[in-house]
């Protein structure tokens, strides 16, 4: 059914993917029958209410948990375990407090048993790119929340990932820092062209960053709609020529999210573009 899309230009393919969890009250369906294809270099935002399975979706792609049914592929290969070319960034920075900023960024290099010396320059370059040059020798607790999350981004990028999975990475930051980080992420995505799957609660972030937005409905998590965001980049939070389009996209997403508790049963298959 999704055969036409599983060509070379697709980075992530999810077909008929379901995932259920066992709980005390029985089996809970976190995700049901998800069909989603994400192009190479695409920025896909995933929005939905709490408990709609957004994070579960990300963990399936990351290979952290197995799907209950269906097929999850990254770069054409079925996902069975975490891949080195798929990097994950979490809601919290998850930095090791005893390591310096540079040493934290180099953690994946050590785990993968790559040569530290070969990646040191790359790490320094990433720190510079995220405005952290001069902080390489600092410890995480000396940094602000936004800076810690930048270190976390550098640590994800040191893997030179084909896919970057981001689980509400800015949700623990204050409003202004969130906007700064989102703007910066847009710049980095435009520079590197990495495929990004970005889970967020924020419609604003989704509209600023994404090529497409996947709207999930809750319990069970179904793909309610895919919304194209056809606004030229670079986009910004402030006043600009595309304010009308931004407002229209935001309104559409808003409407979809508000209505997502009583879905008018949209078949997922017809949504795949």
């Amino acid at each position, binding site marked *: 059914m999704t055969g036409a899309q599983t060509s070379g230009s697709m980075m992530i393919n999810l077909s008929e993917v379901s995932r259920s969890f066992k709980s005390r009250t029985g089996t809970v369906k976190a995700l049901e029958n998800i069909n989603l294809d994400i192009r190479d270099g695409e920025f896909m935002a995933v929005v939905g209410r709490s408990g709609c399975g957004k994070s579960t979706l990300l963990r399936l792609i990351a290979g*952290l948990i197995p799907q209950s049914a269906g097929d999850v592929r990254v770069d054409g290969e079925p996902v069975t375990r975490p891949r080195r070319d798929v990097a*994950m960034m979490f809601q919290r920075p*998850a930095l090791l*407090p*005893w390591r310096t900023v540079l040493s934290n960024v180099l953690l994946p290099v050590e785990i993968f048993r790559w040569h530290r010396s070969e990646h040191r320059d790359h790490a320094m370059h990433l720190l510079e790119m995220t405005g952290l040059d001069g902080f390489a020798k600092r410890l995480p607790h000396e940094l602000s929340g936004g800076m810690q999350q930048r270190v976390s981004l550098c640590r994800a990028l040191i893997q030179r990932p084909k896919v970057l999975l981001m689980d509400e990475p800015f949700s623990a930051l204050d409003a202004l820092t969130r906007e700064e980080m989102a703007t910066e992420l847009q710049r980095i995505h435009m520079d590197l062209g990495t495929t990004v799957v970005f889970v967020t609660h924020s419609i604003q972030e989704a509209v600023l960053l994404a090529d497409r937005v996947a709207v999930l409905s809750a319990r069970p998590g179904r793909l309610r709609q895919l919304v194209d965001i056809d606004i030229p980049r670079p986009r910004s939070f402030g006043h600009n020529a595309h304010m009308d389009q931004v407002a229209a996209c935001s309104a559409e997403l808003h409407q979809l999210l508000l209505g997502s508790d009583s879905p008018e049963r949209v078949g997922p298959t017809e949504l795949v573009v």
Partner: protein
Amino acid sequence: MPVKRTSPRSSQLWSSAGLPVLGAVLAVALWWLATRVFNIEPFFLPAPPDVVDAFFRLPAYLLSEAWVTFLETVTGFGIAAAGGLAIAIVLAASRTIERMTLPLIAGINAVPKVALAPLLLVWIGFGTQPKIVMVVLLCFFPILVSAMAGLTATPSDLSELASSLAASWWQTFVKVRLPWALPQVFVGLKVATSLAIVGAIIGEVIQPDRGLGSVVVSSGQSADTPLAFAALTLLAIMGAGLFYLVGALERILVPWARAIAS
């Protein structure tokens, strides 16, 4: 974070060295004052000068007995620290072994160690060994329990990070779990410093052949209370010294712990 008004250097020196010294001086002054005001007999409670006199009556004897106690304490503490950490790592590595042995460990921990002293006499005999064993018995459990607590307290975001990088069990252990546990390990080690001295003294009081414990026993028999107090003062100094030594080691090895705790 509190706002520091004075220059950070001098206020830090004051709070880390000045305040403890001031506390000790005040305590001794209060003790002295009490013996004067209530006119207490030296036989009952000697004043600080009586204790100093007693020390200078027999300095070589007291110091050599203190050295015996110190060696027993440090040896036992070292064995307990190494053993406690090693067993904590084994228990943290295997849930099966943990499930099997935890009730046993909790049970053995509940046995009053003093009650084992006569048995140690039967099993090991005389000399320094039964004292070292007593030190180990008292120190081992707090070190084990705190190390276990630290090793099982890895935050979920760090565990998830490790699994997202497909880190092996050993990599996760060495790079994440063990360093994360170190501050907790030091909590156990600090508690164990004073228990180590208690253990050595229990051993020496039950078999009063050598050490400061034997000094206390023999000075009690000869009603030489100032000498007993001189021995006790040396023990207190030894205990405080060990505590601060472990604290200094903690500052060197886990300087980040205080920062993230605040």
